[in-house]
């Protein structure tokens, strides 16, 4: 039952929101009513569906790139100590560079196709994966590493057989955080150059119903990706949940 507690919570929020719009006579251009968003979703269903698919594709490709790059960076930084000292602070600092500042450069360099969007999404999403994976690798007990060295294990086998699986739950924590970022990162990317995605439905800020509809779909994409990662986590590291 606790798993479904979000449903009544959502109903209450939507009802309160609708009541606020109706009772205060809030005009459309200030905030859309849930009924207005519902209407926009229905009226624009065909366009919104195709835009959603475009954004979903960007999200999935960018997110996958972020996971691959984030994990590769974590493995490299974990295995090569001096590289970690040299690069890790720069990676963290790189996150303070606003995406809006580098997005035009990426579009100039990579064109208006999928490539700059994938790079932008990967840039936004990779750090939580890298940081969590690095912490996970380091969290294997020192006593276990020492013991395994006496049990014929090389540093490489300690990594593959102990540190990597040990880091599994943390890697998935990072992947879930990144999944929540991926949708908004895709929107940034679409604003930066070319689209066909949900950003197209947000250009007219006065059409608040349509903007709201796009936001709802974007939230659904983020939730869907988050849930998919959570399911994958249950399959990949069942021992972590069972304690």
């Amino acid at each position: 039952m606790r798993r479904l507690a979000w449903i009544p919570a959502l109903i209450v929020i939507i009802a309160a929101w609708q009541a606020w719009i109706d009772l205060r006579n809030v005009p459309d251009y200030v905030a859309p009513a849930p009924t207005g968003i519902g209407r926009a979703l229905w009226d624009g269903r065909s366009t919104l569906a195709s835009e959603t698919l475009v954004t979903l594709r960007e999200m999935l490709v960018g997110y996958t790139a972020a996971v691959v790059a984030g994990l590769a960076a974590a493995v490299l930084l974990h295995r090569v100590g001096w590289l970690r000292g040299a690069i890790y602070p720069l990676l963290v600092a790189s996150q303070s560079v606003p995406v809006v500042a580098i997005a035009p450069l990426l579009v100039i360099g990579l064109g208006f196709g999928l490539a700059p969007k994938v790079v932008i999404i990967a840039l936004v999403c990779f750090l939580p994966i890298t940081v969590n994976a690095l912490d996970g690798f380091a969290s294997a007990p020192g006593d276990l590493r020492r013991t395994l060295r006496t049990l014929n294990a090389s540093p490489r086998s300690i990594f593959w057989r102990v540190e990597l699986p040990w880091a599994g739950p943390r890697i998935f924590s990072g992947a879930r955080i990144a999944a929540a970022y991926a949708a908004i990162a895709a929107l940034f990317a679409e604003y930066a150059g070319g689209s066909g995605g949900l950003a197209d439905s947000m250009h007219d800020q006065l059409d608040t119903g349509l903007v709201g509809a796009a936001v709802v779909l974007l939230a659904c994409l983020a939730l869907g990706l988050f849930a998919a990662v959570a399911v994958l986590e249950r399959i990949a590291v069942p021992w972590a949940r069972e304690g």
Partner: protein
Amino acid sequence: MAGAAISIVDVSHGYDQLPVLAGVSLEVPPGGRLAVIGPSGCGKSTLLSLVAGLEQPRAGRIAVGGQEPARERLARCALMPQDDLLLPWRSALDNAALPLVNAGVSRRDARDAARPLFARFGLAGFEDTAPRRLSGGMRQRVAFLRTLLAGKGVLLLDEPFASLDALTREELQAWLVDALDQEPRSAIMVTHDVDEALRTCPRVVVLSGRPGRVVLAGASADLTRDDVLEALRS
């Protein structure tokens, strides 16, 4: 020094400004078992790390099978820590077989090699059980089999039963003696339990408080519980 499975001569060690061991000397003959007993913090676990080649002593000499280099000692010693440290994502059998897999044996062959030991040492039927579903005593048995399957001539047991309740501990002490009789190895067992030391090992060494130095060494048969307790208090 020649002929001993483990030879420790005048070894001193410490961390930063903290001396942990001071001039410790002892020997374990091939196939012999030695209990090292001492108060908490006297350097018992450090001694095992030094013997295993995981650390180098600041002073003195350590040889395992006549070999002094750390790499050679590491190749000859298997360590069993106080906590079982079984991998939760592997079954009991896969945990026990891990040293063989680490050595390059295929998983199937490693499991085949480990399976008869499960039957011999009271773990039959629990091969595919996850560690969290085993009792504390069974987990320690699996951890011991894992140490045994490393195929090393020297076992270093670091308070292997300290986390168990008294009844299980007593049962496992008898089990360990039986296991080591069946699978003879040279062994050093660190413990802070006097009865455990006298019961499981033919020879006992008592270390003083930090920095640990040998204050009593002798055959278990010649020592009483009071002898050891008096040495510990000295």
